[in-house]
């Protein structure tokens, strides 16, 4: 603890940058209405803090880091030592172990938990690293290992090779504008199409060798720094790299690029568009007259299925269960209601009531693990367990591109943490403001002090203060994980484009779909 405070005292700028980085993203949160006004405010907030000198420093450090990486031994030499001397030393050995096998890990396993902080070249600043250390210390508990990569919410510090389309996409990822495993994968492939279109092989190399390692990797690293890659994205990247490598070096560049673009189009068509069509067709048949379908959060394929059954004239109603802070189900409920479906909307706190009325549960997936477990939006496990308890059939709709050969036993080892301050919406923060007099003196004093030291405007009642209280209170941690793992016993059926399967057959289909 003493070390943390010391760090703060010595290096106030670091603190400032941290806040500046967090802001745009806290505000561009889900609720569509709020979204428009806030980012500007954040910009103005941040502008004075990031002085020109700061930026310069940043760039220098970044350059250094890149040079270090180019040397090859980059991550393993520069990564662990700095970490170990920090207060988060207990995490040290583990991360060091991770760092020992850099190439393989980074490319074939896009699981957030497995990544090293030093791997992406984006904010490799020392300062950034110190922030992480502080955070890890504070946010430890069971999920400490997931905080090893700071989230990037701006394009500051992105490598110059990153294509504008990818830059834009990255921001859309980090602000959840593009959200959902399928949507993220498709938009990534479309952005890569733009990247490949403008790509020109430098003299002296071949496309097959240069494109993946030198041109595509920075793009992927940037996307990863914005939000950890989804399983489907990892699968798509692996597929793309594979076909690029297999390009015959004698193919003329224009031809090769054209082939690649059409291959990508085909991939999207086959693995997503056509697969969705098939899945929706199969799944819609499972909806019968008078059914009450329960679904959690929002999945594009579930929506498609429900609409398809509705358009076929089947009379059924839907219960959408949703949760903070993304409120993805809101849009789903509205869309379904606009199409004339009867929809009931409630939050996960009322899930036990919802399952009592439901007759079937349809769930979307982020990924299906090889042990038949479902990796999906946090809260899914709760809903499916409740449903199983009421012996309702739980049906997962999932394209085979989201299958992975990895297994998950719990949702702690592999998960994605989002910044915890997203948990409190703007209005909730406002509601908390009047509670200030009840706070312990130490917290308020420190917050005030910091206000002053920032040369602060005396905007005492800004909702941002609430976040500061939380950050400053030593014993309170806020945790926002994005996914959880549903045991296979609670899943009755997985519908894929290959047909309906029990969850135990996921590895079989995965093998099948990757071999073709």
């Amino acid at each position, binding site marked *: 603890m003493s070390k943390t405070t010391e760090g703060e005292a010595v290096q106030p700028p670091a603190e400032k940058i941290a806040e500046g980085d967090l802001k745009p993203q806290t505000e561009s949160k889900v609720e569509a209405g709020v979204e428009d006004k806030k980012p500007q405010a954040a910009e103005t907030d941040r502008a004075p803090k990031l002085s020109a000198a700061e930026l310069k420093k940043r760039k220098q450090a970044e350059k250094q880091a890149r040079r270090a990486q180019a040397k090859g031994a980059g991550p393993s030499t520069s990564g662990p030592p700095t970490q170990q001397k920090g207060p988060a030393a207990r995490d040290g050995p583990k991360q060091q172990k991770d760092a020992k096998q850099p190439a393989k890990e980074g490319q074939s396993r896009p699981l957030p938990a497995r990544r090293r902080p030093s791997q992406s070249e984006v904010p490799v600043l020392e300062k950034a690293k110190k922030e992480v250390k502080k955070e890890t210390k504070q946010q430890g508990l069971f999920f400490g290992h997931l905080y090893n990569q700071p989230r990037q919410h701006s394009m500051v510090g992105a490598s110059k090779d990153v294509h504008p389309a990818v830059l834009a996409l990255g921001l859309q990822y980090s602000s959840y504008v593009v959200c959902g495993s399928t949507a993220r994968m498709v938009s990534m492939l479309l952005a890569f199409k733009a990247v490949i279109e403008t790509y020109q092989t430098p003299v002296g190399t071949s496309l097959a060798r240069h494109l993946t390692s030198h041109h595509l990797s920075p793009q992927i690293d940037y996307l990863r720094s914005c939000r950890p890659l989804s399983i489907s994205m990892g699968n798509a990247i692996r597929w793309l790299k594979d076909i690029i490598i297999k390009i015959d070096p004698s193919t003329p560049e224009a031809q090769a690029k054209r082939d690649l673009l059409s291959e990508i189009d085909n991939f999207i068509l086959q693995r997503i568009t056509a697969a969705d069509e098939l899945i929706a067709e199969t799944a819609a048949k*499972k909806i019968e007259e008078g059914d009450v379908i329960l679904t959690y959060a929002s999945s594009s394929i579930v929506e498609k299925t429900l609409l398809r059954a509705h358009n076929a004239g089947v009379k059924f109603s839907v219960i959408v269960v949703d949760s903070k802070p993304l409120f993805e189900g809101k849009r789903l409920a509205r869309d379904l209601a606009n199409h004339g479906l009867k929809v009931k909307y409630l939050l996960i706190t009322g899930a036990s009531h919802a399952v009592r009325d439901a007759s*079937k549960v349809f769930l979307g997936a982020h990924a299906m693990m090889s042990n038949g477990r479902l990796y999906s939006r946090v809260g899914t496990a709760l809903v499916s367990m409740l449903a199983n308890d009421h012996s309702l*059939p739980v*049906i997962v709709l999932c394209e085979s591109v989201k299958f992975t050969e990895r297994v998950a036993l719990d949702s702690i080892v592999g998960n994605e943490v989002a910044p915890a301050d997203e948990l409190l919406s703007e209005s909730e923060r406002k509601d908390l403001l009047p509670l200030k007099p009840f706070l312990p003196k130490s917290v308020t004093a420190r917050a005030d002090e910091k206000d002053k030291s920032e040369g602060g405007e005396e905007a005492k009642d800004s909702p941002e203060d609430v976040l500061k209280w939380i950050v400053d209170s030593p014993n309170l941690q806020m945790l926002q994980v994005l996914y959880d793992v549903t045991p296979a016993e609670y899943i*009755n*059926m997985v519908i894929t484009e*290959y*047909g*309906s*399967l*029990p969850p*135990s*057959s996921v590895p*079989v*289909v995965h093998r*099948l779909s990757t071999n073709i």
Partner: protein
Amino acid sequence: MDLETPTAEHPPTQSFDIVSTYRDLLASDPDLTMPVAAIEALVEALAHSTVSTVAETLQLLERHTNTLKASIPNPISLSAGTDLFQRYLITTLTRPSSLGGLASVHLGPSDDFRAIRNHLLSNGRLFVERAKASRDKIASFGKHFVRDGATVLTNGGSRVVGALLRTAAESSTIRFRVIYVLSPSTSSDSREGLQTVADLRAHNVPVATIPDAAVAYSLGKVDMVIVGAEGVVENGGIISRMGTYQLGLLAKSKGKPFYVVAESHKFVRLYPLSQFDLPIDQKMLDFKVAEDKNFESKDKAPEDGTTADLCFENVPSKCSGQSADDAVDFTPPDLISGIITESGVLTPSAVSEELIKIWF
């Protein structure tokens, strides 16, 4: 493909009655199961027709399959056979490389197609023979599950179960007892059950016969449960005669192993989620109130008159729904310990893998 041939072909194919062929086949050979009889009938139909293209063959097959399915009340088990045959046909016809490198069937001269057809016909017969032989194979696998001194609980008139128990009885090393659940009615199902009971008793195997209601009562004395199946579905559950599900539930609650014996041609591409998710229309549940009573006997008599339905004729108010004789239920995979097939003993989850192997 010329357009004239199909019209020329139509009269003979129409005259071929697939349903009666199927019924004759089933009647002539008591050992034949429904899916195999269906396949045999289809092979027969193919032999009678003079189709000359792949598309026509598939069309013909489709038409026959549909008439066959429509003609019987419960086509689940039958569809296992027809689907399998159709799948087999498609793979052989679209991958003619197995026939010695015929480049393209669709464009090939009629001679080539005739060769393919003959190949199909002979292979179809081979399949039927193999399917019949599989019962003995299952019996030889399954008899090892019957331990010395064990008491086996079984139900229905499954021929595979009968064969298995007979094989076990014939081997002199195993002494075991059988508790046989018999339905009170005189359907063909229970007749076969009685036959098995008589056979086993002749082999010096002590057999007790009990009604459905006594299953839970006798479960304490039981070491294992063996049942047959009409169809094995994708998630590893089974569709079997009414009463199997409750047998499974009871066995699970008492921790008794519950084995299913079924030939692998009974694997159906079907994924029921519950009892009421089967693709057949069963009227087991028929809710009535007092006012209906007068009409009931009049209404029901013509409907069910064809079957020997004691339930309705003697005691009209006893069961309002369909009689349990032809009805089936679905036993979910979590109640099943193992499925004994001719290709080995599978866990329920392996069924879907087998099906995927056939279909992709």
